[in-house]
């Protein structure tokens, strides 16, 4: 579906069902350089299990217009304006990587608008390696290869996707290479600059689930556990043989960790 936020068209997938404000809503937020399609399985499952779903393309990503936003705080406020545009009083926010930081920040800023939180592939801090930032700024392919190589868990470098016939390496590269110039750098710089996770974590009061990969080299599980410890009542699931892309690497386990919370 198409929404308008800040005068720009925003695209969101609804998992094959119309958004019904009467049902509990779930908003999925993708990570740096990616788009709504990383949530393809979870989107459909929640939409067909009693929720209204918006898997959104953030500004400047996927099919959404506008420029990519430059800070996690700006993205968090934008997410609340997205809820307004969709006519949603409250929603569960489920984010991956950068999207998880957005969800965390939005929950702390607007606690009355967020009923539950799902944080995937996230840590207490998300520093971005200098080479990755420089490559992203220069617009070279290296950043896409680094994000893909370090993002995919060791096991999945040989494949073995749960969804038959799909090859994750090329999926990641294809989505990253589809970005508009500068988008990946803007995203990574926003992640790198964000330092409020610990503070914001202490302010979260809603049910929270963290989904972490034991082989995640981008956001190591140890960092994720520290974030979980900082959120009152949060539950953390560490998925075995899983890297940074748990939604597609271990979709069943990711769903199991999220479904009771969101």
């Amino acid at each position, binding site marked *: 579906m198409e929404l308008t936020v800040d005068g720009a068209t925003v695209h969101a997938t609804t998992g094959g069902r119309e958004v019904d404000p009467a049902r509990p809503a779930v908003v999925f937020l993708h990570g740096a350089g990616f788009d709504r399609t990383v949530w393809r399985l979870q989107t459909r*499952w929640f939409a067909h299990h009693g929720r209204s779903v918006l898997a959104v393309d953030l500004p400047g990503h996927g099919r959404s217009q506008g420029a990519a936003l430059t800070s996690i705080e700006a993205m968090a406020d934008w997410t609340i304006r997205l809820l307004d545009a969709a006519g949603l009083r409250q929603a569960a926010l489920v984010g991956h990587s950068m999207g998880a930081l957005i969800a965390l920040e939005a929950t702390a800023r607007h606690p009355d608008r967020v009923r539950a939180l799902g944080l995937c592939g996230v840590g207490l801090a998300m520093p971005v390696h200098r080479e990755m930032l420089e490559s992203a700024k220069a617009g070279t392919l290296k950043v896409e290869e*680094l994000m893909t190589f370090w993002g995919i868990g060791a096991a999945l470098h040989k494949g073995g996707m*749960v969804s038959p016939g799909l090859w994750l390496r090329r999926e990641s590269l294809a989505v990253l290479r589809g970005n508009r110039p500068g988008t990946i750098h803007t995203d990574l710089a926003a992640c790198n600059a964000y330092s409020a996770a610990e503070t914001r974590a202490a302010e979260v009061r809603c049910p929270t689930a963290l989904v972490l990969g034991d082989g995640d080299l981008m956001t190591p599980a140890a960092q994720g556990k520290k974030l979980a410890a900082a959120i009152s009542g949060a539950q953390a699931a560490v998925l075995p043989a899983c890297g940074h892309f748990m939604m597609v690497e271990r979709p069943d386990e990711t769903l199991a960790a999220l479904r009771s919370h969101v």
Partner: protein
Amino acid sequence: MPDAKFLKPDTLALHAGQHPDPATGARAVPIYQSTSFVFRDVDHAASLFNLEVGGHIYSRISNPTVAVFEERVAALEEGTGALATSSGQAALHIGIATLMGAGGHIVASTSLYGGTRDMLALTLPRFGIETSFVDPRDHAGFRAAIRPSTQLVLGETVGNPGGEVLDIPAIAAIAHEAGLPLMIDNTFASPVLCRPLTLGADIVFHSATKFIGGHGIAVGGVLVEAGRFDWAASGKFPTLTEPYAGYHGIDFADEFGPHAFIMRARAEGVRDFGCCMAPQTAFYLLQGLETLPLRMARHVENARKVLAFLRGNPAVERIASPELPEHPDHALAQRLLPKGAGSIFSFDIRGGREAGRQFIERLKLFSHLANVGDAKSLVIHPATTTHAQLDAAALKAAGIGEGMIRLSIGLEDPEDILEDLGQALRASQKG
């Protein structure tokens, strides 16, 4: 920060898509000879049927052994996903049927496998899909042949039997300017010699029966998607961008993005048309994939020795191989197929149809049959077999002479291959 060190193609040919079986420790890919797979509970069943979770339902749609083959081919072709089919022709058909229905139009190279041409020229028109054929070297012709109803541009990496090489980057650019995908039959090159998706193509298909299987023991096909084509922006593909009642109004491009084409091809194509690959076939083809890089290197090496031999033989009038400098596509082949243009080529024998008959009859090592890409050397006379349905004009347009012989050079000792060819050529000239 350490560089990205992705597994290389030779490694992927052995490992992609598989981990040792978690239940038994089996190192080889097990043959999951099961039509169907038990659901964990009722909700799991419903979720699988609605594409909410990954996994297997019924082997017409997917199977664990076949899925290893699919993922491995996707990895080697650098695609986002693959779908195995019962044959290469089935892959072609599913590829087309996923993109269009009655009223659709295809622009295709004239340099095509005879069975492909039959499907496009004779069969699909009965279902309302028309094709315009264009010389593969006539780039302007491709552009001119595109109509408002066109939904696909189609060609082969290396054509058959003239050895025409399609300028994939140039034709892809023409297709993309018109909002169309380019689909390539990469059977003759295999992903070892050419990966069309890295050159701009959007879909690749194979007769996996040929080099991928490599041993002439199993018929199969496979479709691979690049994951880059913007189906929504094109506006020409309602099958991928409009709600589909078959799965509760799913919009494949919206929900599956870089997997839109292959997901629809699986969810509708093999589900409805039923042309699935059997798990035992996938097992055979996986054995072929494991040695594909080694075999292709030897195929090319042997083919080059045969070409050098034939070039100096007085019984040979003309050789159609882009490996040779006199072939019009030699420079293009060097650019797009730097490791070699394969081991399938044709030549015209002095003495026409009768000399050709004598030559084939006298061969001892070569097998006279309708296949290519086998580990064993093969021979056929296209005018009376693979392209028999073409009249004289169509034969000429496809670059096929009545005395043309097609060879598929195998992996035997090259001295034995040359010896066999030499004695048969001598016999063919004795009248």
